[in-house]
C-alpha cells in the first residue's frame, strides 16, 4: 500500500500532504489532551514498534501477490485514534526516510491514506461494532478486526480517488477500482486476523490499558459483609 514517488502528480501529492498535515496536527492536540496519560503512554510506544515490525512481514494473498498489515485499526483500538495516527506517522516516516519504503514526496499521500484515513475509518467501524456487541472486554478484538477488515479496502479505494485526480498515467478508473478493491479486500482479511490476535493478547494481559475497552471493565465494588448477629 506504500505509494512510491511518481504515481501521483505534484499538485495532488502537495494537496494530500497539506490535508495529512492537518490530520496529524489535530492528532497531536487530541492525543495529548484526551488519550495519552502516564499510564497508557508506554503502550503507544509498543504499538508503534509492533506496527513497524509487523509491516515488514508480507503474507502471500495469491497469484504472486502479497500484502502486509497496515495496523491502523489495531492501533486505534489499543491506544485511541489520535495516538494511532501518531504511531502510524512515526512508522511511515521511519520507513520513508531510512528504508526508502514509500516515496518521500509521496509521504503526505501515505500519511493521508494510512495514518489518517485508515485509522479513522477503522476506528469508526470498531465503534459501531462495540455499540452492538456485548459490553465486555472480550468484544473488543472482534470489533477491532471488523474495523481492520474495512480499513484496508477503504484506503485502497481512497488511493483510486487520488489517482483519478492526479494519476501519472491514464488508467481506466473502473479497472483500477476493481483491481485495487478486490486485492485489498483479501489483504484486509489478513489485516483482520493479525489485528484480532494482537488486540486479544493485550486484552488478555492488560485490558485496563486498552482504549476501546474503556467503560467495559467490570466495576469493582467494595462491600462490607453483613454483621453476623
Amino acid at each position, binding site marked *: 500500500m506504500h505509494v*512510491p514517488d511518481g504515481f501521483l502528480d505534484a499538485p495532488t501529492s502537495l494537496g494530500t500532504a497539506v490535508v495529512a498535515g492537518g490530520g496529524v496536527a489535530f492528532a497531536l492536540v487530541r492525543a495529548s489532551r484526551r488519550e495519552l496519560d502516564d499510564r497508557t503512554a508506554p503502550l503507544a510506544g509498543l504499538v508503534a514498534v509492533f506496527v513497524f515490525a509487523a509491516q515488514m512481514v508480507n503474507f502471500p494473498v495469491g497469484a504472486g501477490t502479497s500484502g502486509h498489515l497496515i495496523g491502523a485499526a489495531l492501533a486505534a483500538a489499543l491506544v485511541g485514534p489520535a495516538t494511532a495516527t501518531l*504511531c502510524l506517522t*512515526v512508522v511511515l516516516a521511519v520507513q520513508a526516510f*531510512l528504508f526508502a519504503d514509500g516515496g518521500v514526496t509521496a509521504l503526505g499521500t501515505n500519511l493521508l491514506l494510512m495514518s489518517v484515513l485508515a485509522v479513522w475509518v477503522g476506528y469508526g467501524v470498531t465503534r459501531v461494532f462495540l455499540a452492538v456487541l456485548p459490553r465486555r472486554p472480550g468484544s473488543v478484538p472482534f470489533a477491532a478486526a471488523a474495523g481492520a477488515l474495512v480499513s484496508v479496502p477503504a484506503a485502497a479505494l481512497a488511493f483510486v480517488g487520488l489517482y483519478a485526480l492526479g494519476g501519472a498515467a491514464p488508467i481506466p478508473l473502473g479497472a483500477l477500482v476493481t483491481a485495487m478493491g478486490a486485492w485489498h479486500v483479501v489483504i484486509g482479511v489478513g489485516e483482520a486476523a493479525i489485528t484480532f490476535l494482537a488486540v486479544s493478547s493485550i486484552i488478555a494481559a492488560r485490558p485496563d490499558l486498552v482504549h476501546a475497552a474503556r467503560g467495559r471493565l467490570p466495576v469493582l465494588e467494595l462491600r462490607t459483609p453483613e454483621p453476623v448477629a
Partner: protein
Amino acid sequence: MSTRTRPSTRRLVVVGGLVSLLVAGVLSVFASASPDGLEHVAGTLGFADTARDSAAAGSPLADYGVGGISNGALSGGLAGVLGVLATAVVMAGLVLLLRRLGRGRG
C-alpha cells in the same frame, strides 16, 4: 475479571518489544517477496513504470537491507532490528514531548 495478577506495564512493554524484535529481525526474513497489492495492480494495469526512485533510495538501509552486508537474511534481519529501535526512539521522544507540553498547559 479473573483474580490472577496482571503483568506490570513495564513487563508488557518488555515482552511486546521482544516479540516485535523477533518479528522484525527473524520472521521478516521469511516474508513473501511477491509485489504487494498496489505494486501488483500497478504492474497489471501498466503504471508501475511511473514510479520514481525515492530521494532516500541511497540510504544505507534502503529496501530493508544493511548496506555492505551481502548475506540477505542477516542484512534484512539487522535492518528490521535497527528499524524497531529507530521507531522506538522517535515514538518515545514524541510521547515524552507531548506529555511535557500537556503538563505545561495544566
